[in-house]
């Protein structure tokens, strides 16, 4: 494809995941010419959307594929609870209010849905599951976008943006062959995700702890577009240390391990750090509500590692994971394989076992199995670790995505440090999700935000083109080797 094809481009979309696709499709349906740049090769397209599986949508009635209704107010309260009231409530309200329409929009663009997956029944009421997961979702959107005439380039990475006084003029793009080009467009939609795959940027936020972090998703979210926007005067939102972090198997690859690396057994046993000490109530609340806190807590333990211990009573009560458990006939045998202080771990388990009170175990509710006189306590599902074989999993912090991004208004326009919205720059997806979720997480909300704001951005960009807003660059594409 020659660069000449991009003359008089109306909308340039940077990114290739759910949010980018929703924006590109919408803008194209409004009649705009659209070019989408996905920085990954085609086989890994879709950013973190590739690893997702559902989106959270409010709905009143019991409709397929849900198991029950999820009223807007309940969604709203879930949102307030996880964010503690932080975040732009106007934008959050907009997304939640619009969320019921995402289902039909996705269906109309080829996405297939299925009943909630086994082992995730608690999400069946609140979240719509994509048949085949997130990669199937983005495959459907890519097919839809191609059919509509959205132009798509893979391995095309925007490395800088020319923005003057809040007006986008062109993007410097590193193309698949390594050459650079400047691509001008009348409007820009940034949907390029967070920055969690840029480990040096992460190091600035977390220090050397980042060496022990694992990035669960795409290695392509390096935040280049985010950085360019901030350098060119966009206002930032959220804190660079904030994001979704969960405990995942320490044996996982540095990048792209996805869903199968999670280990859901923390609530069923005990968790110790590398000194063999327990440090938090493992039974505080259910997965997944309080699951995410463990990622951040492990990040604050020595060497950013912890070890979950369970016994054979509960071994079949959580989803199997990618790596086998470390097994032994005694707790000490398992601890030895982790190079933990064996006597210390055995003493901690003995103390824990003595503190366990009688109760009726029920993992489906916050049951009455708890410890007495133990610090920290285990307030639910506390059962003695007494039935060999014993199992252990080494766990590290798995970074799913970051929240640090650009500030936007209700029209998805990027806000500049001057306080004014950019004329022709819009944002959707992880790059702006921090406006709504500066901390905490509601499962599947990221995709909802990407969809709703993607459609807003697509509409607004097409409208800006129609109204002749912005710089309306010269439409030239030149090579600048």
């Amino acid at each position: 494809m020659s660069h000449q094809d991009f003359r008089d481009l109306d909308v340039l979309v940077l990114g290739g995941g759910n949010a980018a696709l929703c924006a590109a499709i919408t803008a194209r349906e409004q009649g705009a010419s659209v070019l989408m740049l996905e920085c990954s090769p085609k086989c890994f397209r879709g950013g973190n959307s590739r690893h997702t599986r559902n989106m959270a949508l409010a709905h009143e009635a019991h409709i397929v594929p849900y198991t029950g209704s999820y009223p807007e107010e309940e969604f709203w309260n879930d949102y307030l609870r996880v964010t503690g009231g932080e975040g732009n409530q106007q934008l959050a309200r907009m997304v939640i209010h619009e969320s019921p329409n995402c289902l039909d929009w996705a269906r109309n663009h080829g996405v297939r849905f299925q009943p909630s997956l086994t082992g995730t029944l608690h999400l069946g009421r609140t979240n719509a599951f994509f048949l085949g997961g997130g990669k199937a979702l983005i495959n459907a959107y890519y097919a839809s976008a191609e059919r509509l005439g959205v132009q798509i380039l893979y391995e095309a990475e925007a490395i800088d943006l020319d923005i003057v006084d809040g007006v986008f003029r062109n993007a410097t793009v590193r193309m698949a062959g390594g050459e650079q080009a400047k691509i001008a467009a009348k409007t820009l939609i940034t949907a390029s995700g967070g920055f969690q795959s840029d480990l040096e940027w992460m190091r600035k936020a977390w220090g050397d702890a980042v060496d022990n972090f694992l990035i669960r998703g795409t290695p392509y979210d390096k935040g280049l577009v985010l950085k360019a926007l901030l350098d060119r005067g966009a206002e930032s939102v959220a804190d660079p240390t904030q994001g979704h972090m969960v405990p995942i198997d320490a044996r996982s690859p540095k990048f792209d391990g996805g869903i199968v690396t999670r280990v859901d057994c923390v609530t069923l046993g005990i968790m110790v750090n590398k000194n063999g000490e327990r440090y938090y109530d493992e039974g505080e609340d259910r997965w997944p509500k309080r699951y995410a806190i463990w990622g951040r807590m492990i990040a604050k333990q020595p060497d950013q590692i912890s070890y979950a211990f369970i016994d054979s009573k509960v071994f079949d009560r959580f989803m199997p994971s990618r790596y086998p458990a470390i097994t032994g006939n005694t707790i000490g045998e398992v601890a030895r394989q982790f190079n933990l202080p064996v006597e210390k771990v055995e003493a901690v388990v003995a103390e824990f076992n003595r503190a366990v009170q009688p109760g009726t175990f029920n993992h489906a509710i916050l049951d009455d199995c708890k410890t007495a006189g133990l610090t920290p306590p285990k307030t639910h599902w506390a059962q003695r670790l007494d039935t060999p074989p014993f199992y252990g999993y080494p766990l590290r912090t798995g970074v799913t995505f970051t929240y640090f991004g650009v500030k936007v208004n209700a029209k998805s326009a990027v806000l500049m440090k001057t306080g004014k919205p950019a004329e022709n720059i819009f944002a959707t997806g992880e790059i702006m999700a921090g406006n709504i979720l500066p901390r905490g997480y509601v499962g599947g909300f990221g995709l909802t935000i990407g969809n709703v704001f993607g459609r807003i951005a697509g509409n607004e960009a097409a409208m800006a083109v129609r109204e002749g807003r912005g710089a309306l660059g010269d439409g030239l594409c030149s090579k600048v080797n």
Partner: protein
Amino acid sequence: MQQSELMREGEHMMTVCNACRYCEGFCAVWPAMEFRRKFAEGDLTYLANLCHNCSECYYACQYAPPHEWEVNPPQTFAKIRAQSYEQYAWPKPLASAFRANALVVSLAVALMLVIFLFGATQALGGKSLATAIPRGDFYKITSHETLVLAFGAAGLFATLALLIGLVRFWRGTGEQVSDLTNLPALATAIKDVLALKYLDDSGWGCAYPSEKSSQSRRWFHHFTFYGFLLCFAATTLGAIYYYGFGWKGPYGYFSLPVVLGTLGGIGLLIGPSRLYFLKLGRNREITDEKQCGMDVAFLVMLLLTSASGLLLLVLRETAAMSSLLVIHLGVVMALFLTLPYGKFVHGVYRCAALLKYALERARKQTLGV
């Protein structure tokens, strides 16, 4: 026991898949996988044969190659299926026929043609093969007794070999032979087979031959499958006419055996030829290319059977009859003899796997899981 590399590959794949489960809605393989936490050889053989090779899962897979875990269920399952065909074949020495299958089938056809040609020339007593026979009476070339004896023996042998394979497979997946006749499970399995449910479990068809979901594979497999059944029904009915009523062939163009055989033959022209062209367009990254010869050999045999049969029907009163009869009988005999050592066995093991799936689901329900 030393685990083979292929079984390690299968176990690795299933461990990743069982921790992910995003494909749960595509077909029976995934719920069946979720009944398990360990994947021994019997489990993998079962799951591989339960797989209909629809490929939806591959395109949805976040771990598909070039991801470092290289999860490729259509290909891995295909390789395991091929291994199970050999492993359970009876008698054992003939199992190697699966390896150079196209060659074996070709030799079988050549050999059978020679034998039937020899028989025909004997029957004609030195007259040219191109002599028209009144009323197209092919029994003048091959007597009814010879036909019944030869094809009965070949049919019995093939059935026996397939049955022994079935029982071996069944035991290999950890099931009791008595459960082969579990009626409710059989009813479910038969329904799934007749509808090809798992080439269309999502209602969108399957990702074959390319990424775009389509019903074409299912429809043309139906043409093939029901075409085969109709031909089988036609032959059975012919036997009933002969032995039950003493009505001797050849039967008229509008007699029931001929109508059934004609419809079946047309199905076996449309189905296999379209399946062949679909196969040509499939994504080679997810196939086991070693099986290509076996797949094509079977499709060609079905095509040759139907084409020669239909031609024989149309030209039976012409001088071409004897030659066409030799070709048709030779092809059908070779088809019969190679049934247990070619692609046909996929149907046997697929049915058994679907039966096992129905049994497993019923057991889970009884347990209240």
